[in-house]
């Protein structure tokens, strides 16, 4: 275990200390007074490495990460879990724009809201199944080009509003679960909405319980409402657009 006081520290130094620590076999990190440092967790490896972050981490948190767990006790900024391969990121507040861009594996749990461009080009591969669960709402351009994985939008504030334009446009893989029914037809022509069945809920249950436990919320509260799922109409949305010269 190691505590690093990040006050006034450049990201290069902070991340070097983390990489060095992991190299020495340290498993548990506490970062104090983090204030906007970029790239925390960039490209680090180790399934049993846990980094607790107090303060507000900067952009590209967990970019290219491959296994460790990052716990943010506040809000976080843009590009969380960018091109992440494996691991887990918990945000106990709100997240900025571009969550999980091109993410291939691992989990991102956000207690609050997330910004624009969440889950763009997320993709699954073999046993790698990226999962994003968001407690609140999301902005526009949600799940564009989504190619795989799971995104769950809980909308725990229970508002019936949904204000995300360009919803899942170009989606061609993966599944989005919503804890409220929206008239999605005005948002995207590339997807279809279904009611969830028992299989869906059995599959989701373990992740929802994991999410609830991570944030100390009663899981019954989350699962007390029906879920809907959105899947792409086609794995090849643009196949018929072209003709060969």
């Amino acid at each position, binding site marked *: 275990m190691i505590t690093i006081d990040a006050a006034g520290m450049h*990201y*290069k130094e902070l*991340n070097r200390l983390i*990489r060095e620590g992991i190299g020495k076999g340290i498993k548990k990190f506490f970062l104090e007074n983090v204030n906007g440092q*970029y*790239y925390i967790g*960039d*490209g*680090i*490896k180790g399934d049993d490495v846990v980094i607790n972050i107090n303060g507000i981490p900067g*952009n*590209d948190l967990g*970019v*290219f*990460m*491959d296994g460790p767990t990052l716990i943010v006790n506040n809000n976080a900024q*843009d*590009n969380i879990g*960018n*091109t992440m*391969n494996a691991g887990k990121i918990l945000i106990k507040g709100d997240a900025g724009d*571009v969550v999980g*861009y*091109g993410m*291939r594996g691992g989990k991102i749990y956000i207690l609050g809201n997330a910004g624009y*461009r969440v889950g*763009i*080009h997320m*993709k*699954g*591969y073999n046993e*790698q199944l990226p999962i994003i669960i968001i407690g609140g709402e999301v902005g526009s*351009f949600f799940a*564009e*080009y989504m*190619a*795989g994985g799971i995104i769950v939008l809980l909308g725990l504030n229970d508002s019936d509003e949904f204000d995300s334009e360009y919803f899942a446009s*170009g989606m*061609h*893989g993966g599944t989005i679960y919503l804890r409220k029914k929206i008239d999605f037809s005005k948002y995207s022509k590339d997807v279809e909405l279904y009611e969830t069945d028992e299989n869906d809920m059995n599959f989701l249950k373990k992740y929802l319980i994991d999410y609830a436990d991570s944030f100390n919320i009663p899981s019954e509260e989350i699962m007390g409402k029906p879920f809907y799922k959105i899947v792409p109409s086609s*794995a*090849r*949305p*643009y*196949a*018929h*657009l*072209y*003709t*060969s*010269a």
Partner: protein
Amino acid sequence: MTKSSFSNIQSEYLALIDHNKCVRCKRCIQNCGWGTYSFGGDKILADHSKCVACGRCYTYCPEGAISIVKNPTVIRENANWSEGLIKNIWRQSETGGIVISGMGTTFKYKKYFDHILLDACQVTNPSIDPLREPMELRTYLGKKPSRLDVDLDENGEAVLKSKMPPQIELQTPFIFGAMSYGSISLNAQKAMALAARALGIVMNTGEGGLHDDLVPFGKNIIVQVASGRFGVHRDYLNSGVAVEIKIGQGAKPGIGGHLPGEKIGADISRTRMIPVGTDAISPAPHHDIYSIEDLRQLIYAIKEATDYEKPVSVKVAAVHNIAAIVSGIVRAGADIVYIDGYTGGTGAAPNIIKDHVGIPIELALAQVDERLREEGIRNEASIIAAGSIRSSADAVKAIALGADAVAIGTAALVVMGCHVCGKCNTGNCSWGITTQRPELVRRLDPEVYGERLYNLISAWSHEIQEVLGAMGVNSIESLRGSRERLRGVELTDAELKALGIKHAGL
């Protein structure tokens, strides 16, 4: 709408068989990836509509019995309404599709390289014979320090104190341009990897990830990160000598790419890390890069992930404001900027983009070099020029216009038998280059074509040495950005100004 099967488009070529010479060995049937030939019981039959003039059949016909000719049936000539335009209208009215094709534009724009002449020594300074004297082509790509700090050791010898930023060492100023596994076959990539290793240069994975078979070639590979992030993970970033962020491509500036699902077999799926059969869609922009500041963020995310040990390259298409764009890219922290001119190749792109978007590499290069010098940041990044470098002459002119090295793509494929038929998008390449059909890929022997690539680059390197010797310099370094050694012919004042060169005679 009811679909009509009748097409106005006639066969472009005729596959003519001399049945007196033909011994019915059926090699043409095997060799043609397009299904042009079939056996009609007693003789070979040809379906002309399928022929693309890729040249495979007659190259492998043991009797020389095949000739491919342009269909003499004319579409009435009209300089305004060309055959290509008329056919595209038919094609699009029959399908409703965006017309796509492979390779670079087929439009006849002015090729500036062909209007630039090189200097040579006469009397006032001696030329050098490269056969007898050393002629340095070694090139280092990467950021060069703006100052060097030197210490003296106890013997009074100078010792370099400054730490050099990471560099790619090339034995000759050529690299193989980015062509992904998916757009080309694994055997085509292997041929380039073998040649790159033998030559001491590098190839580029393109955006399709790094196949396991190429991992041992890491010292000769640049790995690419494009908007689809296919196969990108921390080990991938660390597996080559440099990482390239692909923003744009000369053949299709500003647009993304779709590798169709039918090309995503098990092996490509594993390399790209996406499911079998799904379209591999590269969004037009990187959705984490909407500004120069965002680009800086990704550049440094990669530097962090590679512990600052690898140069980061940024590839862009040559577009109108390229000088300002490259200045921004250099300030964002790129160690190498790869500029791809509008005649560059592609596995597939809409013709509307390929034929009408972008600017010539020659003009882009001259403007970029000039701008970076003016701003005092030319040393901050190396420049790679690409976009149909067709010969060592193009390469040497590009270097004199300001490039550190050039990249070749189409020329490398031509080595492998490519006849530039432009049908890469169909996946039927008879030469086993731009196809994933196993029976076609198998025929491209990486060893054979690796050696031919080696031969080509060696020959071009020798030619560059000849030119350098004639100009009286003994290092490619001395020619870099030396536009005084270039003169223009048949160019307007505006063109000469953009190129930063004088007219011949002046």
